[in-house]
Structures are given as structure tokens and as C-alpha cells.
């Protein structure tokens, strides 16, 4: 007997159910995205009084602008470092917090609550901590013999941003890693404990592979965070300074579009950003997800 494919008779009812979602996606994603693509080919005065089609000129200008190239590289390095460090730190903390016997809950709460701080608020807090006149950490670095000047030294400014961005992101990763660790069956861990004495070896051969789906998901989330959500931190802490060294691509879109009123260039930049994120996500799914076993 061959299995007959059961075909359910249906009219428009199912479409009606997904319609609200489709409308939301169309209005809040596809329409603005299409608008951005359209604007990226136009040269328009700020007030929208006159506009003309200029083809790829906005893009060509960006690619010939060395400061855009620098911003591109900074964004990649920054995102890579923030993701890597915050993932590694969170994993370490989750593994340790998972094996703590006493006051486990307190540890978890303490490691999680930073998550509730909004990026802009975190940035403001950090502004005071790193302020050269009243900042505690700034003072500490200087006492240790590091002339810490985030307002004039690109390295110090990047260091400060990465530190705060990581601090802000560790709790999210921590929660997911902790949940992932707790879903690993006890029996499996105990069996491994009998076969292998070394903690680290057990971690890399048993625990980490079992955490791979969580880690992969977090990698995608973290890169997106570093790309987009660090805007609030940058705006309150460095404004892309000094010498434009901490200007991420997203911050540059804001500077040129919102502060400088050059909508054509700003739209072209956001289209490039859109493509970049699509490519990055595609790469992640294509090459990394293959190695992940659910």
C-alpha cells in the first residue's frame, strides 16, 4: 500500500491567521527597507523639496572614502572581539555557577541582573566611571601607570567600549549557557566522570559539543548585538571619537543621516549594512550550523 498524501481542503482561512504577522513585517520591515534602497540611489535635499536619481554615486562615494573603510574594519574587529570575549566569559561563568553548591541562586542573580540595564544607561554609568576628572577606573588605570586617555587615544577608547559592551552582554549569554548546561542529562555527565578524570577534557569532549546549538544561537545573537545594539553605548561614551576611530557602521549611518542630514549617503550605508548582515548570517548558517548537532 502506498501512502497517500493527505490533502486538507482549505480556503483563505489559514492566510487570514498569518495576515497580521505579514502586515507587521511588511509595514515595519519591507517597506522601510524598500524606502532605504530607493533613497540610496537618490540625491535629495534635507527637506525633501527636490530629489534626483544619481545611480550608484552614493555607493561610489562611500567606497572611495577612506574613513568609511576604517569604520568598516573597526566594526568587524569590534564585533568579533565583543562576541568572542563575552561568549567565552559567559561560558566560563556558567560552568562555574552550575557546579557551585552553595548559594547557587545568589550567584545566578548577581550574574544576570546587568541584563536589565539599558545600553544608554550603561553608557552613562561607564561615562562617569571612565571620566578623566572623577572616574574611578580612569584613576585606577592611571595609578597603575597606564596613561588612560579614551578621549584622545583610539586604543584606550576602543578598549573602554569593548569592556562595557562585553560587561553588558555577558549576562544574556550566561543565562542561555546555564540553561544549556542544565539540559545536559545527569546520567551522561556521571558516565563521563567514571571514564575520564580530567575536568577540562570532559568539558571539551562532552559538555561543549552538547552546548553547540546554544553556542551557535548565541554567536548569531552576539554579532547582531555588537553590530547594532552597541549604538547606545557609543553615543553616550565616545560618539565615534577620537579621530573617528570608534565609529561603527551603524553610528556612521546616524552621523551622516540624522546629524548631517545627508539622506542619500545614509541610506546607501544602511543598505550596505543590511547586505553585510545578510551575508554574515548566511555564512553562519552555511558553515557553522553544519557542525552543530541538535
Amino acid at each position, binding site marked *: 500500500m502506498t501512502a497517500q498524501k493527505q490533502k486538507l481542503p482549505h480556503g483563505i482561512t489559514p492566510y487570514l491567521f498569518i495576515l497580521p504577522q505579514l502586515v507587521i513585517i511588511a509595514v515595519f520591515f519591507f517597506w522601510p527597507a524598500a524606502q532605504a534602497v530607493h533613497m540610496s540611489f537618490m*540625491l*535629495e*535635499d*534635507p*527637506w*525633501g*523639496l*527636490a530629489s*534626483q536619481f544619481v545611480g550608484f554615486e552614493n555607493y561610489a*562615494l562611500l567606497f572611495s572614502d577612506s*574613513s568609511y573603510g576604517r569604520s568598516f574594519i573597526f566594526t568587524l574587529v569590534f564585533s568579533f572581539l565583543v562576541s568572542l570575549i563575552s561568549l567565552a566569559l559567559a561560558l566560563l561563568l556558567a560552568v562555574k555557577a552550575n557546579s557551585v553548591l552553595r548559594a547557587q541562586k545568589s550567584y545566578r542573580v548577581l550574574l544576570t541582573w546587568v541584563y536589565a540595564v539599558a545600553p544608554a544607561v550603561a553608557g552613562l554609568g561607564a561615562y562617569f566611571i571612565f571620566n*578623566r*576628572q572623577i572616574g574611578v577606573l580612569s584613576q585606577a588605570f592611571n595609578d597603575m601607570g597606564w596613561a588612560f*586617555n579614551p*578621549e*584622545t*587615544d*583610539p586604543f584606550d577608547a576602543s578598549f573602554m567600549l569593548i569592556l562595557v559592551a562585553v560587561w553588558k552582554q555577558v549576562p544574556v549569554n550566561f543565562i542561555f549557557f546555564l540553561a544549556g548546561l542544565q539540559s545536559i542529562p545527569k546520567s551522561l555527565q556521571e558516565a563521563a566522570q567514571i571514564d575520564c578524570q580530567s575536568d577540562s577534557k570532559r568539558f571539551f569532549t562532552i559538555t561543549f559539543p552538547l552546548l553547540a546549538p546554544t553556542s551557535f544561537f548565541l554567536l548569531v545573537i552576539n554579532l547582531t548585538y555588537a553590530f547594532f545594539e552597541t549604538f547606545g553605548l557609543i553615543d553616550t561614551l565616545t*560618539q565615534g*571619537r*577620537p*579621530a*573617528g576611530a570608534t565609529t561603527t557602521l551603524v553610528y556612521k549611518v546616524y*552621523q*551622516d543621516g*540624522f*546629524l*548631517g*542630514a*545627508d539622506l542619500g549617503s545614509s541610506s546607501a550605508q544602511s543598505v550596505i549594512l543590511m547586505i553585510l548582515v545578510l551575508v554574515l548570517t548566511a555564512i553562519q548558517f552555511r558553515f557553522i550550523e553544519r557542525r552543530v548537532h541538535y
Partner: protein
Amino acid sequence: MFKKLATSAAVLFAANTALAEVEIQFWHAMGGALGETVNEIAGQFNNAQSDYKLVPVFKGSYEETMTAGISAFRAGEAPHIIQIFDAGAATIINAPGAARSVEDVMASAGLDFDRTDYISGVRSFYADADGKMIGMPFNSSTPVLYYNKAHLNAAGVQPPATWEEFEAIANSLKDNGHIALAQSHTPWIFFENFHSRHNLQLADAQNGFDGLPTEIMYNNDALAMHLGKVKAWKDAGYYGYFGQSWDDNQDAFVKEEVSMWLGSSGSFGGLKQSADFDFGTTFLPYWESVNENAGNTFIGGAALFAMSGHSSEEEAGIATFFDFLTQPETQYFWHRETGYVPVTNAAYELAKTEGYYAENPDAEVGVQQLSLPGGEWSKGYRLGFYVQTREVIYREMDKLMAGDTTPERALSEIEKAANQNLARFARTVQ
């Protein structure tokens, strides 16, 4: 019966329109204590008459306020009055139909307006090529030098009038453990006002007043010399560079790390509150070697623009507020509370006769500097996409101070970017 009802309804309706105040939206960028003063002026205006109700709305920084106004205009929801800063003047004045000239608004409301009532340094910045005022000068300031009296006395020196004098005294301050100088706004103080003070042209087409400029003139020997000197002062420990932030540089002066600071005449009120020491104020220094008859500086700050697309009744409201704002009493109040200069001659006279400057001689320095005899190139500038150009100036200054570029390379980078911005802006204007 029906007729009676209709008449009473009509009477009621008429009474209602007479009672309803016309709301005038005023978007501004004055935060903190400045915002409170704006609210106070709005309150005074609303109490003084009953036809209009002025509603001031704080929209964030200058750039954010301009962007908010632009988006609102595009959506057909423009406010009646918007505050636009010096670097954004080209953006609004070159847009046909975005704003109505203040002179036209006053004339159609039947209110007197005479541009010669305004002090000379203020009059031209927001005016068109024929001198017709487009924007109403509001918060006007200019860069001045503040100095720590105790530091200078201890070193036995006088505040410098010229940069040559500064070079002569900087070392005595350093010997006492102080950095001699800092400043808070590189494009405004070291670029724009460097040109007005020394009467140097900064762009073609009459600094941009006479049509759309295509060529910036920052890449000149005088400015290259000045920037080279600043870098040398930094290396010698005479100049403190604390990055692009206004506050970081001002704080260094407030905390007495630095003996002299170039800031805004509008900083006076804030400094009085934050500085625990006696400070004095004097004119922005100049290079005697560049121009021995240094003249007035540009006004900085912002102006109010009447946005178009409003009914004649609302426009009359805008005009009534402008009229109120420029009354000597209002100006004097604003001047006293904020440290911004009074924009009319009458207000300046009032401040003098009230004896305000006898008690606070420092408060007069800004007005005096703006009233110095000026040259051909000290009226102002109007440059397209200038916000981005300022960003490049800041960036190159960071590099110069870090030793990553030379004054010549920095100036040629700035020239390239500024010209590109000018050309691009010119194409958007049709």
C-alpha cells in the same frame, strides 16, 4: 425658536474662537538651566497677552533639533518656530519654502522691524546676500578667553591679547605646574573664528552669502602656521588637548589643571557656578603677525526661524513672539540669566544703564568683541553640509594632536572633504 437657537449658537461659536488661544509650537535645543530660562520667557509671553500660547519643546542637541524639524516638515507637521544653529544655517536658508524671512513675517503682521536695531556682529550672520534677515538671532555667543586670576598673578603675567604674548608667558605658567591653555571647540574657535578675527576669507561666493560656494579656503598658510604652533605648544606642555568633548576641556579649566580656556561668552553663567576660583574674561587672542588690526568675531549659537506652511493667524503669533523676544527687557533678562549676548542695541544700552557691567565686567566682553570694527570677512559664513565638514575638522585635529598627521596634510584633507560636501550640497539645492 430655531432662529434663536442658531443665533445663540453663532454667538457661542464666535465667543469660543475669541477665547481659544492660538498655539505656537517652539522647538529648541536649550537643555538644563538654559531650557528653564526659555520656559520662563515663554511664561512671561503667555502672561503678557491672551491671543497666543507659546509652547516651547526641548528637542535635544542642535543637530537633533534640526533633524526633528526636518522630519516634521517632511511630514507636513512643521513647528511654527525652530532654533537652528550656526552650522545648520545653510541647510535652512538655502531650502526654498522651508522658512519665512523674519522681516516678512513681521511685516505681514504689521509689526515694526528695523535691522539696524541689531548689534552689528549679530545682524548679518542669518541674513541673505542683500542683508535681509532670514533668521531671528536668539542665543548669540562668541569665543572668548577665560583665565584663572590666581594662576596668572602667581606667574606674574597678564592675560595675553595676542598669540605672540601667549608664547611669551606660557612657560611661566608651566613652571608653576599648570598647563597654559585649552579650548573647547576646534572648528568654531580655531577655524571659523580664526578667519573672522584675522579678516581672512574662508569660502568663495562671499563666504557663501552670495550664492552657493564651491571652494573652502581653510588650506592657507596662516591657519597651517597656527595649527603647527598649537601642536608645538602641546608638545611643550603649554596646551592641553582633552579630545573633542566641550566638557572635558572646560572641566580641565574648572579643576585648575589649565590656567586659560577658550570657551563661549555664553559659558560665563555656568562657570560662575562651577569654578571655585576668581576668573577673568578677555578677547580671543590673535596673531599680530597675521593681522595687527584684528577685528570682530562671528556670532556662534543659534537663531529662530519661522517655518512656512502656517496660517496667517499663526504667523501673526510668531511675529508677536519675536517682537516680545526682542524687547530690551526680555533681552536683558536672557543676557543676565544665560550669559548670551543681547542682540539689540537697545538691550545692550539697557544693560549698561542698569549698571550690570559695572558689577560684572566679564559679562560685557562678548558684546564688546562682537562690536569691534570688522572687516569684509567677519560677517559670517554659509556652508552646505557643514556639520559633516566640522566632523572632519574634529577628526583631523585629533590626528594632529596625536602626532598622526601634519598641519598641511590635515588642512588638505579638510579642504578635500569640505569641497566635496559643498559640491554635493549645491546639487541638492534647486
